[in-house]
């Protein structure tokens, strides 16, 4: 009798614990307010929904080795994870996940994100900041004949001569627009015009594509010629012919002159005067003349260096290079600069872009370039539909199973249905307690498990029927029924748990959710079918002493 009391107590205690762990509580969540998402405290059942149910983005990132191999990949990946995590934390997502997967991937999960493009940019941007002085020595002009010769040797893979002629013509127009009769520029003009004609006569494939810009080290390339020039620049022979100690970097924004768009390209001293590692603060701003800017602050050491270097380069032009691309147009250094500076993003850029840039600059540069190996994002409304459909299927499955059990097993069927109710409660509580993620396949697995969960009951009931048919008393029949059915129930449960465990090990997000639900379901069903239903029978037996018939 006391045994029975403890059984009931255990069941009630578990129900209480389950209800408590599922009780709606306040959680901080990113919720939609009008058009924007804000953090807010909402009250909801603490079941964690997977990305496919609440909407959001899943990213798998890999080290990009297309631009050179990386020596210590494991170490680089660990550092990259730190940077990505810092950026994501500042990005403002509730419950983000940043973790290593295998030895070459970073998994980033951002629930409820509404702008995947932007998130991808923030995660992926290398954010390697350099300040470099533009070339003063006309090194490119001197190297041009060499470039042309290399291309000629390479079999004139150059574009058709007609295109070259066009460019040369528009190039002249450009010269006139850009050079308002300054002395030095005039000289440059003469030089490049000469080179232009040279290019035309010798078919100098390289030099005909580029025009002198407004200040030393700046050049312009017609937008339509950019891919061709990039192809030339990628050639190893050209790379090695670039003047020593110099680098070529594209500008970020095109300039429109007449009907043609031009992209600037800069020849810079390859040694940066400082890099972004000294940066301690960055914040976006909008200023009337320059448009959107990011104002940054350097630490003391960086400031000292910056001051010393800029003092040496007064009246020179300084390019601010982010991820090998020149931001804005290089400003002229008027006087030594200390710890504060700004990066001009140009007119028409949104404040949000500046915000994101400031964010990645603060978090630091990625030690290695990352590429997206996999991306999945799901709209929040789609997830909501899935939950609604899943719950509807769950209710209908329940009703069908209840109908079958009650019609077939009558009183015992009712007991099993109560146990099924407890089963659902326990399973949900277990998922909440272990912080398991409920996914769409997981929800499907849950519905399915409702059908499978009664299997144990069916096994036991059939066994009891057999024992009763052999003329055993109700009490003995129940005892024997449970005893005989037990081995089969345990065997089936263990095999299912084993398969689910394998699935968990080798599956990805949604399927792992399925495996977890399955395992939680089987555990709960073992308990409810064997222990709970048995207790119900014991209760019934103790109430109706000497019962001769059992409705089963």
């Amino acid at each position: 009798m006391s045994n029975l009391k403890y059984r009931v107590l255990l069941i009630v205690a578990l129900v209480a614990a389950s209800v408590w762990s599922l009780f709606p509580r306040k959680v901080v969540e990113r919720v939609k307010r009008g058009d924007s998402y804000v953090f807010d405290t909402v009250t909801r059942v603490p079941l964690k929904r997977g990305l496919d149910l609440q909407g959001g983005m899943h990213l798998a990132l890999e080290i990009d080795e297309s631009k050179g191999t990386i020596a210590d990949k494991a170490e680089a990946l660990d550092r990259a994870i730190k940077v990505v995590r810092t950026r994501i934390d500042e990005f403002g997502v509730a419950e983000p996940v940043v973790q290593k997967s295998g030895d070459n991937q970073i998994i980033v999960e951002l629930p409820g994100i509404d702008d995947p493009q932007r998130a991808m940019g923030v995660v992926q941007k290398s954010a390697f900041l350099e300040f470099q002085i533009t070339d003063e020595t006309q090194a490119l002009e001197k190297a041009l004949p060499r470039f042309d010769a290399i291309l000629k040797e390479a079999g004139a893979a150059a574009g058709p001569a007609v295109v070259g002629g066009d460019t040369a013509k528009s190039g002249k127009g450009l010269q006139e627009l850009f050079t308002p009769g300054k002395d030095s520029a005039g000289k440059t003009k003469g030089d490049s015009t000469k080179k232009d004609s040279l290019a035309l006569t010798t078919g100098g494939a390289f030099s005909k594509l580029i025009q002198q810009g407004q200040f030393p080290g700046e050049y312009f390339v017609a937008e339509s010629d950019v891919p061709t020039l990039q192809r030339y620049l990628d050639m190893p022979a050209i790379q090695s012919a670039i003047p020593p100690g110099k680098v070529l970097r594209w500008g970020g924004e095109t300039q429109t002159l007449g009907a043609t768009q031009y992209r600037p390209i800069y020849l810079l001293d390859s040694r940066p005067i400082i890099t972004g590692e000294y940066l301690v603060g960055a914040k976006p701003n909008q200023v009337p003349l320059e448009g959107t800017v990011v104002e940054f602050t350097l630490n003391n050491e960086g400031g000292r260096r910056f001051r010393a270097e800029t003092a040496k380069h007064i009246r020179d032009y300084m390019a601010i290079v982010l991820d090998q691309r020149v931001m804005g147009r290089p400003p002229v250094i008027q006087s030594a600069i200390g710890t504060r500076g700004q990066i001009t993003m140009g007119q028409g850029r949104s404040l949000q872009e500046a915000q994101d840039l400031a964010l990645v600059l603060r978090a630091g540069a990625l030690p290695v370039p990352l590429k997206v190996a996999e991306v999945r994002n799901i709209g929040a409304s789609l997830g909501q539909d899935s939950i609604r459909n899943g719950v509807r299927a769950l209710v209908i499955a329940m009703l069908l199973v209840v109908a079958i059990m009650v019609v077939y097993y009558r009183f015992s069927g009712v007991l099993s249905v109560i146990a099924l109710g407890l089963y659902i409660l326990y399973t949900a509580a277990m998922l909440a307690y272990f912080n398991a993620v409920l996914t769409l396949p997981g929800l499907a697995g849950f519905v399915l498990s409702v059908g499978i969960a009664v299997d144990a009951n069916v096994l036991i009931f059939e066994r009891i029927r057999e024992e009763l048919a052999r003329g055993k008393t109700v009490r003995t029949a129940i005892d024997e029924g449970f005893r005989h059915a037990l081995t089969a129930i345990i065997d089936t449960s263990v095999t299912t748990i084993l398969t689910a465990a394998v699935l968990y090990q080798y599956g990805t997000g949604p399927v792992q959710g399925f495996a977890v639900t399955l395992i939680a379901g089987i555990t709960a069903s073992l308990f409810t079918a064997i222990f709970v239903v048995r207790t119900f029978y014991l209760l019934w037996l103790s109430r109706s002493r000497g019962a001769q018939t059992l409705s089963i």
Partner: protein
Amino acid sequence: MLRILHDTNFDFIKWWRWAAGVTAAFILAGLASFAIRGGVNYSIEFTGGTLMQLQFTKSQDAGRIRSTLDRAGVTGAEIQQFGSDSEFTVRAQDKRDVAQQASGAEGVSQRIEGALTKEFGADAYKVMRREAVGPRVGAELRRNAGIAMLLASLVTLVYLAIRFEWRFGVAAVLSTAHDVLVTLAFIKLLHIEVSLTIVAAILTLLGYSGNDTIIIFDRVRENLKKDRKSPLYDVLNRSINETLPRSVLTHATTLAATLALLFFAGEVIQPFAIVMAFGIFVATFSSIYVASPLLLWIEHKWPRSVSSDKASGKATVRASRTAELPAGERTPRPRPTEGAATR
């Protein structure tokens, strides 16, 4: 007391040749389809590629979307209506498209989006779902799914070998493997897309079908202990008959849950539910017609020795039965028995 199929005496195993014929024909049909129509219809998770679900503000013509994508250079894309005529899925799974994603999985989807925005305007549509998988991830996942299947079978085999005798374990695993084959043939014949969710369905079936076989074998084990005289053939038949009500009822409740999924859980889950529903029938069929004859055959090939078997009386019976079989016969030809239940 409501009873169905109570105290039945069907000679199930008598029909094993027919059953073997049917199931072999089905698997062959699947293989033929494999040979004629080419490989498995893998989802982009496995092949790499891009899947986008688009919702337009008003109904759109699939042709216009196609020509827009063609102009953007995404030529191998498959465009399907999804529910209403303003929702579409775009699936770019072509080898060329996938290869472009090696340097960054998001490339193709961004190109698609760019082209659509240019053609329809940015406010005319919304991307409800986007999946972009680089080629390497897909290959890795395919390998993992294969490992998962093999490992799950292996783990089941080991467990059964420990819990039962190895004969039972082998029969159960072979019959489960049969279920997976038949289900794969079904997937191939219906041209269902093999996604990770389908792999989950197959693995669930692996467990479910294993269960069904275990229930019967558990009964066989018990009956063998109680009754050491009857031949295995009869014991098997009796065990199947005794567990019949349970089988019917459990399959009914599981099928009920599966049908609820099929009709009410939404389009994403439908393939999973279809495969599960089919699998439930296969599991029922195989535990009776595949696992049991296999067990008989294994008994015949490797009769249990008197010393290692407690049911020594049974072993002699087995030996005498084996002697009746014509030489060269690979499987014991079941002798028609007069009613299985000899209790």
